[in-house]
């Protein structure tokens, strides 16, 4: 049997077409079926096949069959021990294994291979004359991938070798693709974390304004559609924002980057906050596809007049604890989400924020996980956690975080962000 025939055998199993599909999916330039088949032949010819048999004559016979089938990269071992040594040294793509051999027999070789995670997926074809179902079951139980009947028929051998090599190469391709995707996602995740304040920036701000900043950011997929920020406006004012784009995952995360680029090219003017938000909204509306938007709360703390001034675009109601509201108060936050319409107008709200005040901002995962009909975390629970009714000794932020995860049925189905800004009381 020559190469042409073996290709036909492969084509019969649909391997050529499947291989081409996988390569195209993986972003390889291979789109042309003729070229795909040619590439496949090259991959096949390069495959390393280890033939294990104690009889020299059988080894010679298999060599002829495999060489005629187009396989040139052949290795040989005369018993089980030698086979394991050779597999460790040469890392073959497929093993054709005899069962009855001196020293270590074929079944024990299979078992030894499968016990090692490195060889979990190595295709092992066992040559056998076994015709009882019990014997065949034992062979599969020991870890064999497939069997070839003895006496060996060249067409059957090549067809089976071909299909298992195909599987092996496709699995390799898939795992390479997967590794690449995981690397890319990890990089994207790092980038996403970089658009939020880092530890050094935070400790700088805490010192500069004497405001304690606590935060939690968690995505439900690799990437998320939430973001938050705190930044210095001037000597007496520190800005804050929390944003939640529709959906989650890759699309929502791309919108956070869009938003970041918008903000980076606009100057926040605390005296003209409404105008600033309306401009951002207009630009965002032009950028986003219909039906995508972000809920948001943003503003600043003004230490010189002891107030916060903020605008709201349908973000969840901020929770304020202050000398005036020792039991806390939910603040206004209705408004059109950012990017929903180009002509949205916004209002500015002001609240007293003297020393001893705390502002808690959060994404709707807190109140909407796992569904909106039965929120596990409602206003009353939030108030209790943040005002020391659940655990008076813990920091309110740590208490609500712990309490939320006590109640939540993980995994979360939305991204979760919480921030708490606290001015220490006068001592």
């Amino acid at each position, binding site marked *: 049997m020559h190469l042409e025939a073996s290709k036909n055998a492969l084509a019969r199993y649909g391997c050529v077409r499947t291989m081409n599909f996988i390569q195209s999916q993986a972003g390889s330039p291979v789109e042309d079926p003729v070229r795909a088949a040619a590439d496949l032949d090259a991959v096949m010819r390069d495959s390393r096949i280890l033939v294990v048999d104690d009889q020299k004559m059988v080894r010679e016979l298999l060599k002829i069959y495999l060489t005629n089938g187009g396989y040139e990269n052949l290795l040989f071992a005369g018993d089980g021990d030698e086979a394991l040594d050779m597999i460790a040294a040469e890392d073959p793509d497929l093993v054709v294994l005899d069962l009855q051999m001196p020293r270590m027999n074929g079944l024990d070789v299979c078992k030894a291979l499968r016990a090692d995670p490195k060889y979990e997926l190595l295709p092992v074809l066992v040559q056998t004359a076994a015709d009882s179902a019990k014997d065949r079951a034992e062979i599969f139980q020991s870890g064999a991938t497939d069997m070839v009947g003895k006496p060996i028929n060249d067409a059957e051998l090549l067809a089976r070798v071909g299909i298992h090599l195909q599987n092996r190469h496709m699995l390799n391709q898939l795992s390479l693709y997967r590794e690449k995707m995981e690397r890319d996602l990890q990089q994207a995740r790092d980038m996403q974390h970089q658009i939020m304040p880092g530890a050094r920036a935070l400790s700088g701000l805490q010192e500069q304004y004497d405001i304690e900043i606590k935060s939690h950011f968690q995505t439900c997929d690799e990437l998320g559609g939430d973001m938050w920020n705190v930044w210095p406006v001037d000597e007496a004012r520190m800005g804050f924002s929390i944003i939640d784009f529709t959906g989650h995952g890759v699309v929502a995360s791309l919108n956070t980057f869009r938003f970041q680029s918008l903000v980076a090219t606009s100057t926040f003017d605390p005296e003209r906050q409404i105008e600033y938000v309306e401009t951002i909204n207009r630009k965002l509306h032009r950028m986003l596809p219909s*039906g995508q938007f972000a809920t948001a709360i943003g503003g600043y703390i003004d230490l010189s007049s002891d107030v916060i001034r903020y605008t709201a675009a349908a973000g969840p109601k901020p929770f304020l604890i202050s000398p005036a509201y020792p039991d806390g108060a939910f603040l206004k936050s*209705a408004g059109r989400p950012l990017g929903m319409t180009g002509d949205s107008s916004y209002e500015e709200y002001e609240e007293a924020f003297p020393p001893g005040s705390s502002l808690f901002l959060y994404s709707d995962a807190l109140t909407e996980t796992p569904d909106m009909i039965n929120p596990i975390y409602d206003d009353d629970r939030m108030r209790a956690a943040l005002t020391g009714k659940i655990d008076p000794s813990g920091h309110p932020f740590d208490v609500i975080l712990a309490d939320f995860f006590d109640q939540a049925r993980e995994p979360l189905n939305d991204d979760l962000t919480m921030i708490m800004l606290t001015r220490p009381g006068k001592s």
Partner: protein
Amino acid sequence: MANEMNVHGDHVEITLSGELTFSSYKEFQEVMKSATDAGKKSCIIDLSALSSIDSAGIGMLLFANDETKQTNIDLSLRGPQGPVKTVLEHTKINEVIPIVA
């Protein structure tokens, strides 16, 4: 989500029930397409039997509003209740898509 579509004179009425969330996307698109294809002047989406809506659901209503505008169909919403009403008020959807009695 479940839906029902009826044609009355010069308008189409869609009744949604259950939850309008990301997983309703395909079904919602299909019913909106049928409503548009009916070639009537206006379309009312009745939300009184809808129990919840998430941000993706709001997005779908907005998308439907943009689509119907392009074919000169007047879209309006009717009868939101409970959490759905709260979400629509919070996001001021009524300023964008009229809510009729």
